[in-house]
């Protein structure tokens, strides 16, 4: 199990290969559909984002409300593919990592190769387990979006798997090929 810290550097991104099991410690941001739409609209108008994207990881997640006395609610990944129309633009602006679930499309893969970024899979439906890795949680933008607000999370040993790396390596393709016995 590799341990890495967030935000990411190019050398960390380059050291990761599809299939690596990784523990992430550091600062990550949450963002999903509605927040991505707003961020890309800002960038297209040449305006500043609510946080600096350079080297950052965005976790595609919208947690349940935090209960009194706790740090965060249940906080597992959502399906990443819905962010594919937006991700290449964010990667071009410095985003280095994404955490979610499910395969990415070719434009995202190409952007990851060109600008050195990495895509991690977290276990979908393991929101209570992942919450234990979150040590602090603060809303930084779009509070009115409720569960879709952008939050900054401090995580320790967040367990993820490198699903698609910056060389085009793809565990969704390689893993399925390895275990397929389909006749259909």
């Amino acid at each position, binding site marked *: 199990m590799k341990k890495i810290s967030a935000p990411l550097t190019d050398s960390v991104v380059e050291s990761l290969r599809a*299939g690596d*099991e990784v523990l992430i410690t550091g600062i990550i941001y949450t963002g999903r559909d*509605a927040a991505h739409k707003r961020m890309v609209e800002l960038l297209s108008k040449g305006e500043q984002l609510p946080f600096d994207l350079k080297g950052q990881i965005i976790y595609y*997640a*919208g*947690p*349940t*409300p*935090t*209960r009194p006395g706790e740090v965060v*609610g*249940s*906080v*597992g990944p*959502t*399906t990443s*593919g819905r962010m594919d129309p937006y991700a290449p633009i964010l990667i071009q602006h410095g985003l280095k990592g994404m955490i979610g*679930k*499910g*395969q990415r499309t070719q434009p995202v893969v190409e952007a990851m190769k060109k600008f050195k970024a990495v895509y991690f*899979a977290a*276990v*979908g*439906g*393991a*929101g*209570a*387990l992942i*919450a*234990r890795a979150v040590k602090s949680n603060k809303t930084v933008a779009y509070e009115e*979006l*409720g*569960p*879709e607000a952008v939050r900054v999370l401090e995580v320790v040993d967040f*367990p993820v*798997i490198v*699903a698609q790396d910056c060389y085009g390596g793809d*565990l*969704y393709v*390689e*893993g*399925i*090929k*390895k*275990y*397929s*016995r*389909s*006749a*259909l």
Partner: protein
Amino acid sequence: MAKRIVNTSVITEKLAELSGAASCELDEDLIGALKEGLRVEESPVGKQILEQILENAKISRESRLPSCQDTGFAVVFLEIGQDVCLEGPALADAVNEGVRRGYEKNYLRKSIVDDPAITRKNTRDNTPSIIHTEIVSGDRVKIVLAAKGGGSENMSAVAMLKPADGIQGVRKFVVDTVKRAGGNPCPPIIVGVGIGGTFEKCALLAKKALLRPLGSHHPDERYANLERELLAEINATGIGPQGLGGRVTALGVLVETFPCHIASMPAAVNINCHASRHKEAII
């Protein structure tokens, strides 16, 4: 026969209770299927994922933190006995009030937007719910709450197959739908299949199939065999836990059927994630 009076406020209270239970207490049949999956999974990554899913279920049950952050669209099935006389607030209002209270009290996520295609503003209380009512014999009211996640719902499909496509056509449609879904719906999945009826009926059959216990089978042995064969075919795809490769892509395939028109053979696949959440109560 004498009518039994049921105040709809009782339905409100039951739904408020069921919402919390559905999100934090995964059923034993599901836990059993996940443990069996862990036993047969060959991929080391797949095994690790299944271990995390089982550990997550345990943490959720003990800490009452929802097992998944997507606590779903509240899909409510009501079977109302025809000897029941409902009084109190209008039924739909009573149902929505129960969902509202349950989602608020249990700190569940509010995942519903008011308008699908233009404003998409969060309603902030997880209402409205989806309500399916059926009038049945008797003097009871059965409530089933299914908390349906969006990720797996997005991967579902309906096909208006031709009678000439036959059972092979159904098999191909089901397996192709699962393959196209890949890792998106959080495999290991549960596959609800509706065959027959009309366009909307087969979709409802597929959804209702997901309420059946894992390991249960269609009463017609031919369709029970179809369930077994489809499960084997889906688990031969190699998609595996979370779509990262492995043996355990689905925990079960549940088929429901209905007669259909001489010209038609509709089929629907409703995919559920591994966190299949549904709870019921009888009033």
